[in-house]
């Protein structure tokens, strides 16, 4: 545990030592600020006759997830394994008394930490809104729980893609693609037959996030996100293990 923590500390420090994190955080916070302003504007101007606050939060959370997180989390995770591969530092890491699981855990937690930091900064917007118009926190709480779970899935996907390549760019684009695919599978619901769509919807992150954005925490959705994250963590471990027979780092 302490060894994992040592790696975790190193990874978190590495985030703050390079400009990438600051750029990503700036982009993420700017986007979220823009969504907040635009979405709130939209409902206050055109939202006659609808539940303004609930509809606003639903739109805001979907925007933050689809546009905000999809484009920024792959940028946070892309370097985690790819850079170590490129530099060759992964060879030493694999010979330290750390199991592959501990290495993965250290890196996952580091990425999760910086993501949660970014996400925590966006709490300013709903808090500001509360100062103007008080509301019940349930919707916001569920929305943020969904964003956190979704973030964990995105990080797990990003780590997996990063473990496959020694190019950060490939890792970034690859995880963006995979994360986007998980979102987009159910966009065109009319395209498939009923049975197909039922299966596709079951695998779509978008469909499982939908409930959270409405303020509902359903254990099925929680389980779904945890399973997907664990599935990709499992794939990552298999990918790290490939050095046993590939012989390359």
């Amino acid at each position: 545990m302490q060894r994992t923590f040592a790696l975790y500390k190193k990874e978190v420090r590495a985030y703050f030592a390079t400009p990438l994190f600051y750029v990503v955080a700036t982009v993420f916070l700017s986007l979220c600020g823009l969504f907040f302003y635009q979405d709130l504007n939209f409902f206050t101007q055109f939202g006659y006759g609808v539940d303004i606050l609930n509809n606003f939060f639903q739109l805001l959370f979907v925007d933050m997830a689809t546009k905000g997180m999809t484009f920024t989390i792959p940028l946070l995770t892309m370097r985690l394994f790819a850079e170590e591969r490129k530099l060759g530092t992964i060879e030493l890491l694999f010979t330290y008394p750390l199991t592959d699981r501990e290495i993965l855990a250290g890196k996952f937690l580091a990425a999760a930490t910086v993501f949660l930091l970014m996400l925590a900064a966006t709490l300013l917007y709903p808090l500001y809104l509360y100062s103007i118009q008080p509301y019940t926190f349930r919707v916001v709480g569920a929305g943020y729980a969904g964003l956190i779970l979704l973030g964990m899935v995105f990080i797990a996907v990003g780590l997996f893609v990063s473990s496959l390549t020694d190019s950060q760019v490939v890792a970034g684009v690859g995880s963006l693609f995979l994360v986007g695919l998980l979102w987009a599978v159910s966009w065109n619901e009319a395209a498939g037959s009923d049975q197909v769509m039922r299966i596709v919807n079951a695998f779509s992150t978008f469909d499982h996030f939908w409930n959270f954005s409405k303020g509902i925490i359903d254990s099925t959705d929680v389980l779904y996100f945890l399973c997907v994250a664990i599935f990709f963590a499992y794939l990552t471990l298999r990918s790290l293990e490939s050095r046993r027979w590939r012989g390359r780092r």
Partner: protein
Amino acid sequence: MKLGLTGHPGTKYDLPRMIEVQNLRKQFGSTVAVNDVSFQVQQGEVIGLLGPNGSGKTTIMRILTGFFPPTSGTAKVGGLNVETDSLQVRQLIGYLPESVVLYPEIPVTRYLQFCGEVKGLRGPRLKSRIEAVIAAVGLGDVRKREIGKLSRGYRQRVGLAQALIAEPALLILDEPTVGLDPNQVIDIRNLIRDLRGQSTILLSTHILHEASVVCDRVIIIHRGDIIAEDSAEALNRRVEGVFQTLVRAEGPSAEIAAALRGIPGVEQVVEDPQPNDASARFKVVSKTGEDIRKQIARTIIDRGWSLAEVSPITLTLEDLFVRLVKQARADEATAN
């Protein structure tokens, strides 16, 4: 710097036999990197793995460090199997990979702190170990600098420092002097000598001289097999046993060759023409230990030819291999 023995608490180590490798084989697809290698290393020995690039040295080291397992055969470090007790074995080992690459954006002391923590060091003990290795490898001037901004020689020292941080019982150094300038090479060799007696050292090199200078015993590897295993002294004898001299002269080559053969102590004269050299060139093989350069010079000048060069030919690793392989074949023939 004193290197005690820590290792993993609660684990029984068989340290006198530090490394025990039995019929080790490693294949990547159809490529055989290590064919069938067996050797032992006692505690406190300094062992050199000598061989040309691509002979399987790094693969053997990576198996010992737990980077990947062997295809077949067993490797034990301190009596522990590197496959099944990988974590405990890694705890015993300090490893310097060939192209030592470290996180460029991290300052030296912080990096060493990370390495120490990952290897289980804490608190005041970690601090004292960091100070000890910084002093031992001479990193005091650059301790706060980022690793990426250091010169090649300093980075190699940081690599050595991270290998030493947890007082390893076994130090594995893969080509520790490659890519360094002559002064840095001497520094690193001196460091390795200082570590003698405190830690068992396995180092690889493709430089014959280095192996004979630094190591107690040398294991010579060629295409994934051990072709010879000898003490450094015996290796030196083997190397010095061949005395070759290069002779360049102006004159009739047949006559010069005949004259050279007439010199007492000369065993063989081989003509060695080079396309861009008009003079007659010969490789003269002489008896062990006799310097016949003066006689050669006199012989040629006395006959009225002009002498362009007389110089000793140092035996290269390749020459040694040729000799060893020939020797092995001859031994086989006599055995049959």
